[in-house]
């Protein structure tokens, strides 16, 4: 930080002078665009790692019985798939978008704290290495599930310690990232841009960053307690010393439920940028969008125990958490309504970003409805820990967050690279992803309703057919993402030159700078009228 502090009075200093090249450009990166790019590549790499984990699981589940994996290793893969996708892929991807887009959209020259930005990125590869390395310690990686429930997490081998350390690093990275984003958005907007005229993506990220700041430290606390229970003789969750394993679940989900909104709110922001552009209309109900986002965030803090209906809870508690959870459907419904109303009578065209955005609304609504079903306590007791919940959270996380990330990537890729992506590849990527996604996850609803529990390496014969279908779909979905890689690499290497505006009806400051966006933008703040 000290280097940033000694602010230089001479404005004429040479830019090229502190513009390192080669590997130094990336290791010492302080430019928000470079850091954003690193975030995005990192999260894509993690998507592939987590995806390979998932495909191993699906291979084992192709047929009943044990074919290729031992149950212990299967549990490790389940856990690591969750941890890597949540903390390694989806969250960093959104931070990558924030890095690239927030300064461009509010007319700031960079993020508020450039060196901290660099540090919060470089913590991630370290954390990811710890996670991957934990496969190779005695006892293997943690197999307690991504929620790391006590008492399992108190009992696991050293792989658990590595996972805890990795989560601490990723948490620290997220906290620094959100401090950076909040400060940038609140203090560095261009003159003439009040909060209520800010692009929707910045609004959703501002609210997400506050959520992160509020709950990420609570997760850090929870896993610190697990760590001290394991090694320093405390008894927070250790029943032997009067601790309570259910307490872990309460503390974890106090973080965990806001966490799922942390992964979806920026996605809402991206969709709110994409749809108006391709519907050639202004976003319907801007201020209601802002209030809906804020109310989702606030409500998310008081619904955590709906993850715990089966742990035994007084009826009044169940009723409170049930109704509070169902209440979230209202602001979410407002958002879906506004998106559809934006499309209504718009002159729509369906380029790849719009395809993904429309697809997002469709599949996210399905995921939202299954969520509503599980908010009902008596139904949840039936469906808890079955494949129904697996279907639900993949509908909101894959078809929700991931599809929105794809939409955003195709939408801003011409601005980032200066080239148009290959529309044909993009369309292939969308349709393959959409179809194979549903082949993979739709049958899971039926499996769950029929009572197939999650996180088992084996299952009875009657689930065999659907599981075979799911596995085929999963491989299709995994391979479809290679089309994405191909489309992105092709776009970086060349293609039709993108205009500054890129899209016919694109509005916002990011479309006023050249494509590709130069290394330094908005060094003198633009004036928004």
């Amino acid at each position, binding site marked *: 930080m000290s280097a940033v502090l000694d602010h230089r009075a001479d404005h004429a200093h040479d830019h090229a002078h502190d513009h390192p090249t080669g590997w130094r450009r990336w290791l010492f990166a302080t430019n928000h665009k470079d850091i954003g790019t690193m975030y995005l590549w990192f999260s894509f790499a993690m998507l592939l790692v987590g995806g390979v984990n998932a495909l191993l699981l699906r291979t084992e589940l192709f047929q009943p019985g044990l074919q290729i994996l031992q149950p212990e290793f299967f549990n490790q893969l389940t856990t690591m798939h969750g941890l890597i996708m949540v903390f390694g892929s989806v969250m960093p991807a959104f931070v990558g978008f924030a890095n690239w887009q927030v300064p461009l959209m509010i007319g700031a*020259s960079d993020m508020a704290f450039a060196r901290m930005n660099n540090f919060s990125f470089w913590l991630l590869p370290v954390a990811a290495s710890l996670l991957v390395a934990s496969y190779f310690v005695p006892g293997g990686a943690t197999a307690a599930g991504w929620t790391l429930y006590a008492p399992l997490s108190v009992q696991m081998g050293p792989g658990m310690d590595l996972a805890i350390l990795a989560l601490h690093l990723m948490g620290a990275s997220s906290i620094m990232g959100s401090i950076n984003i909040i400060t940038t958005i609140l*203090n560095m907007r261009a003159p003439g841009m009040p909060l209520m005229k800010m692009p929707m993506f910045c609004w959703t990220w501002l609210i997400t960053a506050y959520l992160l700041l509020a709950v990420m430290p*609570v997760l850090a606390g*929870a896993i610190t*307690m697990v760590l001290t229970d394991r090694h320093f003789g405390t008894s927070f969750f250790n*029943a032997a010393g009067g601790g309570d394993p259910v307490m872990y679940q*309460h*503390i974890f989900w*106090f973080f965990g439920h806001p966490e799922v909104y942390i992964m979806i709110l920026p996605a809402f922001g991206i969709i709110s940028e994409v749809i108006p552009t391709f519907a050639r209309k202004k976003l319907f109900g801007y201020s209601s969008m802002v209030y809906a986002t804020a109310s989702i965030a606030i409500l998310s803090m008081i619904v955590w125990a709906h993850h715990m209906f089966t742990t035994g809870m007084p009826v009044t508690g169940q009723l409170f958490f049930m109704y509070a959870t169902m209440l979230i459907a209202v602001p979410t419904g407002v958002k879906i309504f506004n998106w559809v109303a934006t499309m209504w009578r718009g002159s729509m065209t369906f380029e790849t970003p719009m395809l993904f955005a429309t697809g997002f609304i469709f599949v996210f609504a399905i995921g939202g409805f299954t969520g509503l079903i599980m908010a009902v306590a008596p139904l949840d007791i039936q469906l808890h820990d079955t494949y129904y919940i697996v279907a639900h959270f993949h509908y909101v996380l894959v078809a929700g967050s991931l599809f929105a990330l794809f939409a955003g990537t195709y939408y801003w890729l011409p601005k980032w690279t200066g080239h148009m992506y290959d529309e044909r590849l993009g369309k292939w990527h969308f349709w393959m992803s959409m179809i194979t996604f549903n082949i993979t996850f739709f049958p899971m609803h039926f499996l769950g309703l029929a009572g197939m529990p999650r996180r088992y390496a084996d299952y009875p014969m009657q689930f065999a057919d659907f599981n075979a279908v799911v596995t085929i779909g999963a491989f299709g979905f995994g391979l479809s993402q290679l089309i994405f890689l191909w489309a992105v690499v092709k776009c970086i290497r060349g293609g039709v030159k993108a205009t500054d505006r890129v899209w016919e009806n694109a509005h916002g400051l990011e479309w006023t700078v050249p494509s590709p966006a130069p290394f330094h933008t908005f060094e003198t703040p633009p004036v928004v009228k």
Partner: protein
Amino acid sequence: MNGNPPASGARALNLRMLGKLAVVAVAMFGFGFLLVPLYDRICEVTGVNSLTKVDRGAAEFARNTQVDRSRTVVVEFDANGRGAWKFKPEVASLEVHPGELVTVVYDLENTRPAPTVGQAIPSYAPRQSAGYFRKIECFCFQQQELGANETRRFPVVFVLDPRLPKDVNTITLSYTFFEVGGRSASAQPQQARDAGAARGG
């Protein structure tokens, strides 16, 4: 570094905000730990999860309750020791009338040649019977210290609340005796052994 360094005023503003937000993060870290006593307090107030709390009203309740001889409930006794304990009830099960004062004796042996402190945690099946199981005397009300290789007999005196739901005919009372201060006595040693074996092999 990035283009023009922001004017010093803006820089100071940013740093002030950094300070405030960092305080929020640290406070929330503390809040995570605060949740532990907070939940304990909530459980105490609402009467949820008070497994080892002394039931002060139980003796009074037992004196003033009619014995319901028309009804018989089977109470099964189960005992598990985690750590260096040998722990078992002297009878496996009893037929009990609701309202009747019952005494059952558990034998606990410390198999370690050193004094050891332990705590018993009760659990009930079916779960909703817990509220109707009133214990007047129980070794689970406090930690117990046993000398080297000492064996001790512990009585449990209880009375079943006659308001026990009619469909409950069998209650299982299960105690697990944990070693206090042992480093997660349940599985850590097992894990360590496994790891040792893995290295040895």
